[in-house]
Structures are given as C-alpha cells and as structure tokens.
C-alpha cells in the first residue's frame, strides 16, 4: 500500500507519520477464506456462512467506494442497507429473536424488514468507532469473542464456528493495527467488520446480547449524531472533538459545538496519550461484554 501511495496520516502523533491505508482488505481475505472453508466443511449450514460472506463483501465494497470517493454520510447509511440483502435472499435468518424476560417473540414481518437497517447500523457504527490506533479492531475482537462464548453457552455451534472464523481475521489485523499502528483498516475494513458482526448476529440470534456488548460503540455513534444534529460529514462539523498537544498528549476540546465522541468523553477529565485512550476504549468494550454475558443468563429460554 505504501508503494502505491495509499497512505493515511496518523493525526494523533506529533511526527504525523504516514501509515499504509485500506489494509482492512487483508481482513476481508481472511473472512472470505475462513467462511469459504466452513461452507465446504459444514454443508448443512453452507447457506448461512454464504450469506454472512456475501454481506461482508457488499459492505466492504461500499467501504472501498467510500475510501475512493468519500461518500456523503446519508449515502453511506442508505448503501449499507444493501449488505442485508444476501441474508434476506438466502433466508438465512430466524425471525424469532430471544429477548430477556420476554422470551422468544415472533416477528415474521418486522424482522426481515429490520435486517438491512440492522446491517447498516452495525457497519456505520464500527466505521465511526475507529478514532485511535487499534480501537475498532481491538473492540471488534472483544465483541466477537463475547458472541462466540455466548453461542457456546447457548448451544449454537453454527454461531461458534462462524464467530471463530471472523475472530481469526480480526485478531490477526489487530496485531498490526494496535498502538503504534503499522497499518490502517480504511473504511473498507471497518465496514467489513461492522457487517461481519451484524450478519453473525442476524443469522445466529442473541440480538440483545450483541447490542449490550456493543454499547460503547452505540454510545459513541448516538452521541455524535445527536450532538452534531444528524448525519454530517467531517467538513461540515466546525470544531474537532479533540486536539493534539505539543507533548503528544491529546485533550478534549471544550467548545460546545464540538461533537460528543467517546474519545472526547474519555478525555473529559484530563489529557491522555493515544495508547491510554485505546486501552480505555477496549476496557469499556470488555465491561459491556461482561454485561452482555449477564444478559445472556437473563435470557431464560437459553437455559431451558
């Protein structure tokens, strides 16, 4: 990527190094290879693995277009709904989600309608949750590990296998993406990871458990959207949420016009180094993942 001039500036370091960009493509190759292998090994569930694979491919394609053309936020949200279509076309979903306390609910009409929107939400949420080195890939690794554990406890082997297939690629990427990053995922990577998470959950269930595990990412995107007043591109937001100081510390901007991001919240009390912010991001995800496992235990039917 560096040889082809596909680089991004690491803005949170005083030396502003140029880092190879769009290396998230390597995750995509990992996803396709491992899910393809699962299709061949576990023929009875091949349509599910194929649906996950195609969803990821569609989302990655949208991310790649965004990398090349810089799509408008609204266009990204609308286009990302397309990644739900392979799951609908292959009917790789169970329209009876398990809800804590309530139990299994029948949503034969609402569930398939919600799938494209759910995939768009997870793709765009992970795309917005990549502010510092390793935040997106590290938090995705924690969330997928939690889901694998949840599927294991709930006796869903298909979910365990698909989750492990996705986890390998994300973890391998995290090794290179963690602080100090040697590669950046690009939108192609973050969209692919978001679709991977969304399609894994839609095809295997435990939706509420996944939402709880993703609470820091949901908090991040919801607060950004509500503080800037809807879907807006970086250029139309007048003030950046954080500022790099000369000594390498990053501080939260006090201007009330700045978007309320999770990183700005982490920096609210004092400036921090990028590595500390990344660690805090992952610790928050680990905390919500712990709550997600408690949520699984409250989902009564799993244990009956």
């Amino acid at each position, binding site marked *: 990527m560096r040889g082809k001039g596909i680089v991004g500036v690491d803005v949170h370091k005083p030396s502003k190094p140029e880092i190879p960009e769009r290396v998230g493509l390597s995750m995509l190759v990992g996803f396709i290879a491992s899910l393809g292998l699962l299709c061949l090994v576990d023929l009875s569930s091949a349509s599910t693995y194929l649906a996950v694979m195609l969803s990821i491919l569609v989302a990655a394609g949208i991310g790649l277009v965004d990398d090349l053309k810089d799509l408008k936020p609204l266009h990204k949200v609308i286009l990302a709904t397309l990644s739900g279509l392979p799951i609908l076309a292959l009917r790789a979903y169970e329209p009876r989600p398990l809800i804590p306390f309530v139990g299994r609910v029948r949503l034969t009409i609402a569930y398939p309608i919600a799938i494209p929107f759910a995939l768009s939400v997870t793709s765009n949420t992970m795309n917005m949750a990549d502010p510092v080195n390793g935040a997106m890939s590290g938090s995705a690794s924690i969330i997928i590990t939690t889901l694998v554990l949840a599927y294991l406890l709930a006796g869903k082997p298909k979910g365990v296998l698909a989750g492990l297939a996705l986890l390998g690629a994300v973890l391998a990427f995290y090794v290179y993406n963690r602080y100090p990053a040697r590669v950046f995922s690009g939108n192609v990577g973050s969209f692919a990871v978001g679709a991977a998470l969304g399609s894994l959950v839609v095809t295997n269930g435990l939706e509420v458990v996944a939402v709880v595990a993703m609470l820091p990412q949901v*908090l991040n995107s919801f607060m950004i959207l509500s503080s800037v007043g809807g879907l807006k591109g970086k250029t139309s937001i007048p003030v950046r949420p954080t500022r790099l100081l000369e000594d390498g510390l990053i501080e939260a901007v006090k201007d*009330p016009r700045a978007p309320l991001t999770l990183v700005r919240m982490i920096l609210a009390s004092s400036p921090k180094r990028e590595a500390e912010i990344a660690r805090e991001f992952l610790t928050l995800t680990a905390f919500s993942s712990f709550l997600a496992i408690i949520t699984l235990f409250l989902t009564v039917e799993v244990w009956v």
Partner: protein
Amino acid sequence: MGVRGTVWIYVDIFFAWLSMLLGLYLVDRLVDLAPILEEFMSRTQVGVVEVLITALLFLLWLIAWRILTVKAFRRIIGS
C-alpha cells in the same frame, strides 16, 4: 457528579444496560396484560398498543440516556 477520570462512562453504560433491562421487563408485564386488554379492544388493536408503548419506552430510554450523558460530560469537562 463528583466522579473523576472515566468511571462516569462505566456508570453511564451500566445505567443504559440496567434501564434497557427494566424496559424489557415492563414490556414483558405489558404482554401479560394482553388478555385483560383484549376484553376492551380487538387483538389487532392490542398489538398496535403494545408496539406503540414499546416504541415510546425506547424513545424515553434514548432521551434519558442522552440527558444523563451530556450532563455528566459537562460537569466533568467544566463548561
């Protein structure tokens, strides 16, 4: 709020999780009320009422979470 560092974000996420569970519990109670409601309304009307109340609870949850988060953030950052 008086809480320094990042502890307040953990509290914020914990509040979101707890209130989400409380909302789901209320929805569960609502479903239990369906047979009583069906004495006054048709089955379809009860279904519509259930969906509307669930949507209302979700909106209230989002608004409460936003208010709490923004207030805590402003208190910590001091602006």
